[in-house]
């Protein structure tokens, strides 16, 4: 096969379990838009896993991914060094986030979900929208992308479960305060499924449109397997081609949470459950 291996040009540990990697890929760096993802395979026996494109540099021809080490594949990926090659790297996949025309947006990132929320916040800022960001983490040790978010946000709120950084409390506590006092064109929430579910319950009360980014189990990422299917507004959707962004008020979160645990029982086998970015957070939630 003429393999399109890609070279790793930077590798940085963002916190004890989260790694940032920058790879060379000219086409994706030029083409990718906020909200899209890639699928990679670490080596010849590797499984295909989706990761959101966290940033791109069309001049240096680089693409940034951020992942949490949760299973065999992300562990293998994390062991690679600068100048090592990744076997397969496909993208950009999925529909870009629809952000055109939004004037004021509240962007919410939960845990490693911040890596997915960041490119959207950045794109909003670039198009001139007012961006209010709420980032939630379990504790101080797990904070990522704080500076990056500061730079693209008009206001930035940090929440933590234990109060070791920012304010003590959940992102929904902060959001409720904001919604009491101001209005947004849209809320964009990305994080563990439970977090997105509760954000959506809250915004429904206030009648604010809410977009969430779904990361179910995927294989091909092209609409061929149906493994990534979810129920949205009572209809079956494939997250890899119809999403990953969906109207949060329409998503069946309970079903999505169940489906993401499909392969969790197979502990003896190397595997990744659900979105590699979100699993740990969910286990905790």
């Amino acid at each position, binding site marked *: 096969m*003429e*393999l399109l291996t890609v070279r790793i040009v930077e590798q940085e540990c963002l916190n004890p379990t989260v790694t940032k990697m920058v790879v060379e890929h000219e086409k994706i760096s030029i*083409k990718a838009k906020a909200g899209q993802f890639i699928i990679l395979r670490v080596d010849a026996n590797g499984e295909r896993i989706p990761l959101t494109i966290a940033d791109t540099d069309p001049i240096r021809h680089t693409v940034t991914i951020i992942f949490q080490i949760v299973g065999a594949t992300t562990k293998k990926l994390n062991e690679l060094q600068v100048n090592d090659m990744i076997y397969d790297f*496909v993208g950009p996949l999925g529909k870009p986030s629809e952000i055109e025309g939004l004037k004021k947006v509240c962007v919410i990132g939960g845990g490693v979900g911040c890596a997915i929320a960041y490119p959207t916040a950045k794109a909003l800022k670039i198009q001139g929208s007012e961006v209010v960001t709420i980032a939630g983490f379990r504790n101080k040790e797990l904070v990522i992308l704080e500076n990056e978010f500061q730079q693209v946000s008009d206001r930035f709120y940090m929440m933590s479960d234990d109060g070791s950084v920012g304010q003590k409390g959940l992102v929904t506590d902060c959001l409720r305060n904001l919604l009491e006092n101001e209005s947004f064109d849209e809320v964009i929430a990305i994080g563990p499924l439970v977090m997105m579910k509760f954000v959506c319950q809250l915004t429904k009360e206030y009648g604010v449109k809410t977009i969430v980014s779904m990361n179910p189990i995927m294989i091909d990422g092209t*609409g*061929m397997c149906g*493994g990534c299917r979810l129920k949205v507004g009572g209809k079956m959707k494939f997250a890899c*081609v119809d999403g990953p962004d969906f109207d949060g008020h329409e998503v069946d979160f309970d079903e999505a949470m169940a489906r993401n*645990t*499909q392969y969790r029982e197979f502990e003896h086998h190397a595997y990744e459950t659900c979105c590699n970015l979100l699993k740990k957070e969910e286990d905790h939630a």
Partner: protein
Amino acid sequence: MPNMNVKRCEMPLQPKEVRSHNIEEVALGYTKEMAMEEAERCLHCKHKPCMQGCPVSIHIPDFIEEVKNGNFKEAYHIIKKTSSLPAVCGRVCPQENQCEKYCVRAIKGESVGIGRLERFVADWARENLQEENVKPVLNGHKVAIVGAGPSGLTCAGDLAKLGYEVTVFEALHVAGGVLVYGIPEFRLPKKIVEHEVDSLRQLGVHIECDSVIGRSETIDELFEEGFEAVFVGSGAGLPNFMGLEGENLKGVFSANEYLTRFNLMKAYDENSDTPIYRAKKCVVVGGGNVAMDAARSARRLGAEVTIVYRRGMEELPARREEVEHAMEEGVEFKLLTNPTRLFGHDGWVSSIECVEMELGEADASGRRRPVVKENSEFEITCDCVIMAIGTSPNPLIRSTTKGLETNPKGCLIVDEKGMTTRKGVFAGGDAVSGAATVIQAMGAGKKCAQSIHEYISNLNQ
């Protein structure tokens, strides 16, 4: 004197008790002696009825004559004139509905084993002939192919031989289309597909895997990059579901997902990182080749398997041989049965409710339409359900390319030359016909290669 045995020479098989525990090929292929003996059964009818059943008009009696005389190389050249993938088609074509259906020998016994002979010749050639794949002199024109399934690979090969610089863009990480992600190793060893792909490379065809056209780049961008024509052979990979209650329970898969994990990702292999659900009691819904492949794969992973199909034995659309092999391997068939809903426990599927059907009037396709028997509901306990009820063309290409028209089923509309409603964009295979067969896809790829050659020649006059 021809061999007048009413039965064809038997195909050696792996014993059924052994093969349901491994993934090696089930049918082992004829030996030289068997092939020559079987070739003796051909009566060399003047009007060659078998040829009318072959979608690509292989000169069947001619190649069989060469086999009879032991001239396997000559036989191979005759087949290769009209078919690009004989080792594949000899294994997976539904011969009983094609060439063998018209064989005169079938009137008083079994037809000549045309498919088996084709397979023998192709396998012999792969093992014994050094094909000189000399890179043709380039003519300076570039063509892009979308999808590395049988249609795309065939189109690429024929164009490369005509001197075109051909690039195949494939979404997955390996070339082959359904031949690598769908049809299992035990029916079509992957080394055969690899061999075909390698010979294309030797002809100078570039194969770019990991390129999803419509996302990585669009068809319009391919034209901007200097490709003068595009062939779309993107298949019909979008899995259909029935829309039943409980279809999203854990343990319910599309056949495409199950087979992709099993074949493409080699999840049966301990060294593969990709997990696959190892069910105890699996129900497969559907009666085509896809259903048989899913059922037999699940069997090899240790499940008890039941196939549920809404029509009868006669109507099963799968190749007859696959149905026979599935039965021998212990797959149970519940025919005239249709699922109505799925029940779950703790989020996992625990049973499937079905109704009994009976066959009524013939429908538009000529097959008798199944109708529900009143109050016939019953449940089958299971921990896995695989939906193999058909696939449709993937909408990605048409939704990202202006001017590409499709019929209501999402199939690309083409003219008699294989050109779509977009100038310079040709299409063939399942993307045009909906899920069909390897040989039809290959035939369409061949036809489009000719059309593209004419089209580009005219453009540059």
